[in-house]
């Protein structure tokens, strides 16, 4: 299909139009252009997917050679296989729903034009990221989505806190991106190409499993993935990134951009197979992140922060899947997560929208009857998030846990950790449901969601429920996974754990059979909840280790220490000047006397030389 280039071009063109209109376009046209372009792109992707499912052929398209310097010839070229089609469908499909939702959500905002311009730009960059044929073009999309994330997190720029969150998001991910850039340098220097498929082939022929170079290269790529996907140790930006408009959180910080790291690792899995230590590190990072984030989610009171931590935790599952070699399961979880987390964010956005921008869950409550559509959306989303049986999240998470169990040696540990995480997920997701939608009301909603908000919610509800039945066309991309052959006991435990979490949440937050207050009141409980509320104080740690030293350094250097050298030179000249000035007394007799003595001296020297 030659028109593939149209897919990223549509949102890009729309973004350019919106930018060039400089806010003078009528709202209706902005909405039409903003959502319509993504909708059209979604239709194109659907056509592409239909063709792809029919013949299963990998499609390649070269637009032009980006630059050619010696052997370095990256092209602007697309490579479309099953993985790409899956990612493109998620980006444009979920993206279109979120754009539709945004029309209503952002209707009253004076900068709606700017909003849609950024959103469209993001969709275009994200599409380039997943369609890229080489790592340099992928890097272009990678940084492009980072920029859009920065712009959208800081969309309401008047509040300096939003700007701070936006900068944090960009700079923390930039740390990872820089590692990734170094990875690209290493790969090119060693393998002579950045085109992904030839590179994987070259890697296989030049490197043995366990060589140090692939380990280093994958570790550097992992750095980029960790930054973008908000995994330990670079996860701290994501909770703060919730400062942006909620649909942005749904699109960028839940469904698409944050999963770019997962995509990157899946795309270059051939390299990771050559580097078992990195592969294992991916699994451990995933496990650690999913647990830490799940604990942190337990203590939050801001509805969006809960969801942000749960996003970090769910991407942890994806990393766990990648780490244990279950690439298809990881991508499957990526897809289902995109559905249910977008659903949850959009529902949360609807709650916030209807409750005068209230974020604190303890000032909500009793919304079950007042906002029924949102309640059901939230319930379905939470069920899928908690992986209750037969929801989409259940299938994907179950597959990951079973694959983890299969790994010899560390497998059971990973599995047990994942289970603990699953239980915690059940607790925090239903804590959210119970606190917000049950109990007594604290704030009255002042409006109901309109059709532009309700439709995406309903579609995503369906997808969250039935998404588990999708069969992703990934068989040609990844090596076939060994069929899980775990015992039934393992499966039952996997199924039962989220239910246990649900039960605990019920007992704690709805039935009140267990008192959360007594749990949290002890010194240990208070300490832990404070620690979790602040996200394990990792922000404070980074503040002390990185931010303050950097500020101190820049403050110390502020007045240009190097100039002191030159100022010293100037001082020396001035000093000499003053000394020499002292000779010029203005006294005529002194001059005459010095001339005489000078003459005497000269004559003496001449006489001495003459003899």
């Amino acid at each position, binding site marked *: 299909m030659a028109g593939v280039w149209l897919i990223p071009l549509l949102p890009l063109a729309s973004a350019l139009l919106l930018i060039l209109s400089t806010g003078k376009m009528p709202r209706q046209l902005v909405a039409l252009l903003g959502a319509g372009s993504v909708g059209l792109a979604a239709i194109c992707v659907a056509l592409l997917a239909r063709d792809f499912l029919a013949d299963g052929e990998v499609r390649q398209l070269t637009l032009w050679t980006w630059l050619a310097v010696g052997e370095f010839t990256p092209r602007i070229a697309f490579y479309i296989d099953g993985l790409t089609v899956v990612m493109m469908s998620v980006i444009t499909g979920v993206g279109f729903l979120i754009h539709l939702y945004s029309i209503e959500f952002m209707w009253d905002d004076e900068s709606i034009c700017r909003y849609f311009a950024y959103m469209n730009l993001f969709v275009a960059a994200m599409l380039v990221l997943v369609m890229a044929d080489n790592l340099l073009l992928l890097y272009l999309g990678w940084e492009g989505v980072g920029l859009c994330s920065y712009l959208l997190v800081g969309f309401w720029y008047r509040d300096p806190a939003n700007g701070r969150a936006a900068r944090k998001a960009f700079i923390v991910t930039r740390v990872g991106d820089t590692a990734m850039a170094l990875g690209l340098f290493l790969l090119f220097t060693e393998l002579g190409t950045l085109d992904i498929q030839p590179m994987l082939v070259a890697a296989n022929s030049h490197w043995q499993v366990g060589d140090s170079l692939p380990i280093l290269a994958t570790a550097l790529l992992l750095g980029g993935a960790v930054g973008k996907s908000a995994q330990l140790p670079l996860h701290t930006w994501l909770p703060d990134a919730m400062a942006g408009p909620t649909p942005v959180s749904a699109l960028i910080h839940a469904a698409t951009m944050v999963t770019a790291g997962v995509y990157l690792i899946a795309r270059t899995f051939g390299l990771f197979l050559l580097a078992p230590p990195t592969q294992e590190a991916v699994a451990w990072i995933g496990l650690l992140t999913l647990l830490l984030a799940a604990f942190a989610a337990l203590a939050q009171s801001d509805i969006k922060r809960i969801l942000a931590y749960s996003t970090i935790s769910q991407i942890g599952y994806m990393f766990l899947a990648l780490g244990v070699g279950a690439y298809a399961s990881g991508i499957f979880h990526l897809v289902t997560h995109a559905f249910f987390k977008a659903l949850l964010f959009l529902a949360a956005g609807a709650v916030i929208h209807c409750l005068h921008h209230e974020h604190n869950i303890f000032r909500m409550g009793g919304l079950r009857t007042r906002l029924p559509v949102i309640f059901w959306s939230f319930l379905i989303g939470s069920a899928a998030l908690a992986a209750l049986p037969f929801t989409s999240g259940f299938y994907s998470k179950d597959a990951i846990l079973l694959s983890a169990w299969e790994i010899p040696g560390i497998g059971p540990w990973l599995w047990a950790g994942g289970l603990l995480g699953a239980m915690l997920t059940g607790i925090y997701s239903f804590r959210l449901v119970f606190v917000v939608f049950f109990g007594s009301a604290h704030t009255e909603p002042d409006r109901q969601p309109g059709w532009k908000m309700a439709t995406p919610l309903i579609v995503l509800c369906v997808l969250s429920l039935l998404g588990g039945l999708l069969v992703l066309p990934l068989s040609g991309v990844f090596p076939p996974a060994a069929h899980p052959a775990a015992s039934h006991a393992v499966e039952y435990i996997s199924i039962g754990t989220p239910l246990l979490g649900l039960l605990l949440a019920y007992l704690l937050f709805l039935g009140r059979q267990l008192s959360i207050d007594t749990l949290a009141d002890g010194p240990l409980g208070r300490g832990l909840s404070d620690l979790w509320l602040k996200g394990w104080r990792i922000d404070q740690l980074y503040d002390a280790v990185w931010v303050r030293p950097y500020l101190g350094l820049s403050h110390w250097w502020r007045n240009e220490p190097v100039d002191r050298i030159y100022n010293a030179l100037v001082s020396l000249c001035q000093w000499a000047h003053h000394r*020499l*000035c*002292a*000779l*010029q*007394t*203005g*006294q*005529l*007799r002194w001059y*005459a*006397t010095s001339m*005489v003595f000078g003459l005497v001296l000269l004559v003496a020297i001449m006489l001495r030389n003459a003899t």
Partner: protein
Amino acid sequence: MSGLQIPMEHVLALAGLLFSCGLMGLMLRRNIIFMLMSLEVMLNAVALAFVAAGAQWGQADGQIIFLLILSVAAAEVAVGLGLVLQIQRRFKTLDMDQARRLRG
């Protein structure tokens, strides 16, 4: 009647003596008038030496130089006295240690 009638050394010693006197006067006196006079003495000492040398070797150069020095000295006195008048007017003194506005 060629050559010098008295020994050259005597003339040179006298010239040296006169020159030193002038130099000492220049260095030690503070009054600008006296400094100018000392300068004249020095010039004349040099002129004497030239005349003596010219006589010694019977050449006219010494006398030419003497005439030159004479005219230079006259010009110098003219300019110098003009400056003295200005100094007197500006500083109300002829003490050169007082007139030191050009110090650094």
